């Protein structure tokens, strides 16, 4: 029996205070197995101990919300008995250590979260942040992560339909790999994880257990340092083939009424899944580890409980239904084993080789897990003064530079490695504002988008987080969807540092404010903290994944110009806000100022107006204005439709063309309709102005010259392939 020393406690990521608390809760010293269990259950990753108090402030309910945070994924009603189930999750640290397998198993994990609730996954998204393009590791990480996401998702036959990619030196040692899965279920066939009742069989299905990723959950909660690359054998290898079988087998069993509760084995595997099921069901769980299907010999109880082998699920069945379930899993050639039983003791009891190796009250692992009110410092919001810039710079040369810059260039290199059209319901593939995926067999469709602008969040976490929500809402609106709800993935540095905790609190408050104002509740999410290397934190990155509903997919807008001669209208106020803009960073070489403020009332007013036109079937061409500003947005529309534009401004000033003011859209529609729309906008109090007309083969701005589309497109398409082939990259300031 291992003697527990302070050293061992520390290696388990537990503080001396936390260890004392464990002794109190148990009324004795924990043994080594129990210590392992506590260490994962009380890790930041599983317990949310730094963020829990703040997350409570988020709006999580709404008339359509069926299930908010707390289950494996959020559930929202989309009418006709259909429900959409979705969640986003990070796999940051594993992807840095082994990009292909880290990203692949991240995809597998989030898919299990969604199908464990009874949904068939129908779309995947991925939000990726890498270090500087010229950092020695970047290319290797990008290629491995993208291949891993594709490798897993493509094999599962679920289309990957969108995402985000950013580059910034703050991610040099801590890339972010956030994956989102969206699934569909019937509202009367949603499965939860509460292991209710006693005497019910606890069943293990899926892959065998090996020594994979032991202490992965603890690792995800610890700051990186030079030697964490030594923790290598903890890498898990994904097996999408087995996961696909697991998906089909689970859905087949779910069509019966044999399941009481089901829970995927994610981080901390068997331990956290059984504790969570018991906790939610108010019951106890007794497991016999001898019955766990094992891939390796001589595994200890500690190893089996903490293993993070992938592609496994835990279920509680109605008594007597085991044979029926076993038949289904046998058909799909998956392991199936009754490994335990629910009890009425509210204790987690683990037996191995005839002995009780752990016996703990379940509430001690879950409810009693520490919650910290960590001290935080919220730095003052930066002043919203316009940064200095050279007003004489030629506009078109800047446009060409921007459209081919790391954050604005085409992500085609990425998305062409993802099967975007499998399932034959992808109505909008990557490249637009939101992906659109039809609800199979209907005319309804889901709109999905992932958004956050980390440089805004760094400058002002509150405004930046608000902006992330607003941009996501705007992206749904731009295709004509009614935004329904969001999932979030809060990626931050070390919460034990007050300034980082300040970013977390500011970010959560900003999300809360925007979600409330836009009736866009948070139904699921994930926190990834300690994203620091040698004390250098990442930019605060609260990624927002939104889902919206198009009631009739035939009334939808896309970004591509469709006709020459359309009038171009600008919705929203343009003040020329250059603080924290891409223009300032790429052209002037400075990251400074305040992020553009978001006026949530105007955001809502403008968006509702635009959506209304699409829903009425009067508008088919829309793009929201985000990174890069107005001229970049117009150029994207022109490139997508291979039709140019001629713009006339009263004053073609740089700030107006490249500023990143929020709440704006560009619309293209026939001239006769445009006149009517301008009138309606005025009546609705929506700020709208004419910009010019579509046509030709170039982007022309009166008084500022022009640039051929072919040249813009070449710049837009070439940066990413050049990066990945190791070619010469255009200079970055």
């Amino acid at each position, binding site marked *: 029996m291992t003697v527990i020393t302070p050293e061992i406690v520390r290696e388990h990521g537990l503080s001396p205070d936390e260890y004392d608390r464990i002794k109190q809760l148990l009324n004795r010293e924990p043994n080594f197995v129990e210590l392992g269990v506590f260490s994962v259950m009380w890790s930041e990753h599983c317990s949310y101990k730094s963020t829990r108090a703040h997350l409570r402030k988020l709006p999580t309910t709404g008339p359509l919300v069926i299930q908010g945070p707390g289950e494996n994924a959020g559930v929202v009603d989309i009418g006709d008995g259909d429900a959409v189930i979705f969640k986003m999750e990070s796999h940051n640290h594993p992807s840095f250590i082994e990009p292909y397998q880290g990203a692949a198993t991240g995809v597998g994990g989030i898919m299990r979260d969604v199908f464990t609730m009874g949904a068939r996954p129908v779309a995947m998204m991925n939000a990726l942040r890498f270090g500087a393009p010229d950092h020695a590791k970047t290319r290797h990480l990008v290629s491995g992560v993208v291949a891993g996401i594709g490798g897993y998702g493509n094999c599962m036959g679920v289309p990957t339909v969108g995402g985000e990619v950013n580059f910034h030196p703050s991610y040099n040692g801590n890339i972010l790999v956030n994956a989102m899965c969206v699934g569909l279920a019937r509202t009367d066939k949603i499965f939860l994880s509460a292991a209710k009742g006693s005497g019910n069989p606890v069943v293990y299905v899926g892959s065998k257990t*090996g020594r994979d990723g032991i202490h992965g959950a603890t690792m995800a909660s610890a700051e990186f340092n030079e030697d964490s690359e030594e923790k290598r054998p903890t890498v898990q*290898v994904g097996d999408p083939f087995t996961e696909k079988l697991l998906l089909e087998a689970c859905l087949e069993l779910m069509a019966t009424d044999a399941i009481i509760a089901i829970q995927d084995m994610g981080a901390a595997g068997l331990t956290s899944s059984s504790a969570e099921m018991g906790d939610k069901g108010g019951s106890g769980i007794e497991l016999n580890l001898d019955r766990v299907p094992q891939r390796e010999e001589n595994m200890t109880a500690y190893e089996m409980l903490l293993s993070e082998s992938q592609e496994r699920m835990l279920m509680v069945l109605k008594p007597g239904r085991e044979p029926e379930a076993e038949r289904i899993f046998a058909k799909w050639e998956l392991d199936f084993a009754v490994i335990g039983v629910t009890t009425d003791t509210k204790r987690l009891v683990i037996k191995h080789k005839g002995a009780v190796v752990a016996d703990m009250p379940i509430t001690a692992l879950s409810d009693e897990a520490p919650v910290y009110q960590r001290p935080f410092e919220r730095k003052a919001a930066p002043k919203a003064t316009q940064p200095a810039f050279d007003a004489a710079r030629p506009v078109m040369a800047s446009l060409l530079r921007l459209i081919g810059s790391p954050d604005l260039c085409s992500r085609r290199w990425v998305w062409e490695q993802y099967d975007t059209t499998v399932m034959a319901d992808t109505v909008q593939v990557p490249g637009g504002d939101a992906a659109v995926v039809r609800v199979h067999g209907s005319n309804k469709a889901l709109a999905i988008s992932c958004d956050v602008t980390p440089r805004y969040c760094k400058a002002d976490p509150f405004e930046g987080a608000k902006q992330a929500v607003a941009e996501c809402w705007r992206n749904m609106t731009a295709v004509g969807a009614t935004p329904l709800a969001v999932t979030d993935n809060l990626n931050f540095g070390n919460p034990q540092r007050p300034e980082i905790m300040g970013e977390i609190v500011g970010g959560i408050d900003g999300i809360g404010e925007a979600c409330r104002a836009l009736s866009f509740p948070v139904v699921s999410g994930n926190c990834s903290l300690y994203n620091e290397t040698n004390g250098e934190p990442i930019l605060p990155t609260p990624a927002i994944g939104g889902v919206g509903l198009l009631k009739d997919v035939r009334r939808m807008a896309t970004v591509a110009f469709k006709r020459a001669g359309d009038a171009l209208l600008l919705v929203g106020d343009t003040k020329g806000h250059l603080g924290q803009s891409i223009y300032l960073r790429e052209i002037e070489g400075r990251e400074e100022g305040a992020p553009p403020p978001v006026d949530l009332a105007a955001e809502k007013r403008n968006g509702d107006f635009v959506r209304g036109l699409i829903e009425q079937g009067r508008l088919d061409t829309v793009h929201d204005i985000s990174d890069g500003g107005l001229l970049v947005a117009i150029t994207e529309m022109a490139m997508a439709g291979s039709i140019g534009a001629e713009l006339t401004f009263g004053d073609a000033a740089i700030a107006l063309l490249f500023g990143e003011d929020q709440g704006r859209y560009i619309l293209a529609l026939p001239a006769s309709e445009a006149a009517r729309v301008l009138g309606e906008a005025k009546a609705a109090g929506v700020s709208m102005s004419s910009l010019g007309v579509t046509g030709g083969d170039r982007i022309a701005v009166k008084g500022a010259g022009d640039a051929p589309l072919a040249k813009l497109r070449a710049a837009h398409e070439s940066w990413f392939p050049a990066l990945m082939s190791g070619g010469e990259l255009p200079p970055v300031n």
Partner: protein
Amino acid sequence: MKARVFVTLKNGVLDPQGKAIGHALNNLGFDAVGNVRQGKLIDIELTEQDEAKAHASLKAMCEKLLANTVIEKYEIELRP
């Protein structure tokens, strides 16, 4: 000089391919087949004539590129 490099998964690392191959062989009636693991082999032609130097250089290639030492191990075989 020619070399053959074998790259295999470290012990304990899950090998989904090997598992599936073993399964398929059993299904085909090869009952004597137990555990199966799949790896890679890489045949390399080298202009280097000196064995020791070739070996050192191949080792460097494995560490840098040929093996993913996070999950894989390698063996080098020179075939002069």
